[in-house]
């Protein structure tokens, strides 16, 4: 059991189960629990038990890392990169801490550098100190495989850290390659600490959309691109040459990113409410299409940025950031999110401002408001 034990950090209570700790349930215990019947209650109790063990593990790790204080001064960036060595154990072997020298491993360097850009963007543009706005350490694990025999075609946020796979080389290149994908994952962390958007239905699609919006903005900021110059793509350059596609998603033209049978066909993202895809609110149904219907708020953001021109992070991004932190709630819908961004625009720039008008017009154009 201990060899499989991940090291997790304490996070907010799990919104789904109410568990005070979020953990992975060990295989053999899971089996026992499943047979015992009341698995929700049992797994919650087990999670709590595991959480305390993991916190003990974390203290050991903190010792290894050296001078890591619990109170972090504002504006201090702390990145920690681990190598899972093609296995599933988290966080893996520590390979680079803050200020550590650049190494030969491209994924380690990219995970480190890109996380730094994301930190700097939120710090310099919106005055935010890391994911939780309290200097949370940015942890990432590279060369992760959930199954040692299968290359891992994914990047995800597990509630406490980022996890990146190598990609299979046939459809996907390494998942650390794109700055906007790393920014997408880190923004999931920010959303978790701010609006806490539930990961299903329209609130889940908004959760995905905020990650795409700030994913793209981080890239535009790094490249000093105006809204007109930006590609508005997520995962550009991450697909292998054999794939018929340019990226995972397009905020500018949802539904145009790829068309490949290995990806299940054409990019299914809609850019208007009339094409909203009603999928089952189950995990096989992508929780009601959270990665699909995000195309609608994505396009609304693009339209605002396009209308206002210039650097999108300065006005459109500021409005979306204010709404995410101050107005949007866990169960927000597209409509309430639209109203939230209008309120943000109004309070930041005024009721009659070009910004406020652009936000209203964009949500109308994508069919969310009439």
């Amino acid at each position: 059991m201990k060899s499989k034990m991940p090291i997790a950090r304490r996070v907010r209570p799990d919104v789904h189960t109410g568990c005070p700790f979020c953990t992975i349930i060990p295989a053999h215990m899971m089996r026992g629990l499943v047979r015992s019947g009341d698995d929700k209650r049992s797994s919650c109790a087990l999670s709590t038990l595991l959480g305390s063990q993991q916190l003990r593990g974390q203290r050991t790790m903190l010792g290894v890392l050296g001078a890591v204080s619990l109170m972090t001064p504002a504006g201090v960036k702390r990145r920690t990169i681990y190598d899972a060595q093609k296995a599933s154990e988290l966080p893996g072997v520590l390979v680079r801490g803050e200020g550590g020298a650049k190494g030969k491993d491209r994924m380690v360097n990219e995970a480190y550098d890109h996380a730094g850009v994301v930190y700097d963007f939120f710090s310099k543009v919106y005055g935010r100190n890391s994911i939780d706005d309290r200097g949370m350490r940015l942890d990432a694990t590279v060369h992760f495989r959930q199954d040692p025999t299968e290359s891992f075609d994914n990047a995800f946020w597990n509630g406490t850290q980022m996890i990146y796979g190598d990609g299979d080389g046939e459809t996907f290149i390494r998942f650390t390659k794109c700055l906007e994908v790393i920014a997408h994952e880190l923004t999931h962390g920010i959303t978790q600490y701010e609006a806490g958007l539930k990961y299903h239905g329209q609130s889940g699609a908004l959760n995905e959309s905020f990650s795409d919006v700030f994913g793209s903005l981080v890239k535009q900021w790094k490249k000093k691109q105006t809204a007109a110059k930006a590609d508005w793509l997520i995962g550009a350059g991450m697909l292998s040459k054999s794939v018929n596609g340019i990226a995972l998603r397009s905020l500018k033209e949802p539904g145009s990113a790829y068309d490949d049978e290995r990806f299940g066909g054409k990019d299914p993202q809609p850019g208007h409410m009339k094409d909203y895809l009603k999928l089952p609110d189950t995990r096989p149904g992508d929780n009601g299409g959270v990665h699909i219907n995000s195309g609608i708020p994505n396009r609304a953001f693009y339209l605002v940025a396009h209308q206002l021109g210039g650097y999108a992070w300065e006005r459109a991004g500021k409005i979306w950031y204010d709404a995410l932190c101050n107005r949007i709630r866990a169960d927000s819908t597209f409509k309430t999110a639209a109203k939230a961004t209008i309120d943000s625009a109004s309070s930041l720039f005024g009721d009659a401002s070009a910004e406020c008008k652009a936000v209203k017009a964009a949500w109308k154009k994508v069919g969310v408001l009439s």
Partner: protein
Amino acid sequence: MTTNKSVKFTLMRSGGVAGIRPPSIVLVASGLPDDVAQRLEQLLEEAAFFELPSELPERGPSADNFQYSLEVRRADGRTHTVTFAEASAGEALRELKRLVREYGQR
């Protein structure tokens, strides 16, 4: 244990940062060598597959994680589907998934 070679496995994946749902992987045990078919039976037993809830609870507020659904249909028509993230599955279920991926066809 008797080997039931008429079992059909269907593995689907959803979620992930790409949000793509690749074609399902289908495995019919009748086309397999005896030892593999037997191993699959053994794993169904070990995982208590037909007693598992249809969804294994996922750990905390993660995003973009892969979600798997494994459907198993027996010769007598008995069918059960379990949805899980890799980290919340037991060893036997993980090995089942691995074998379906290895021997199945898209």
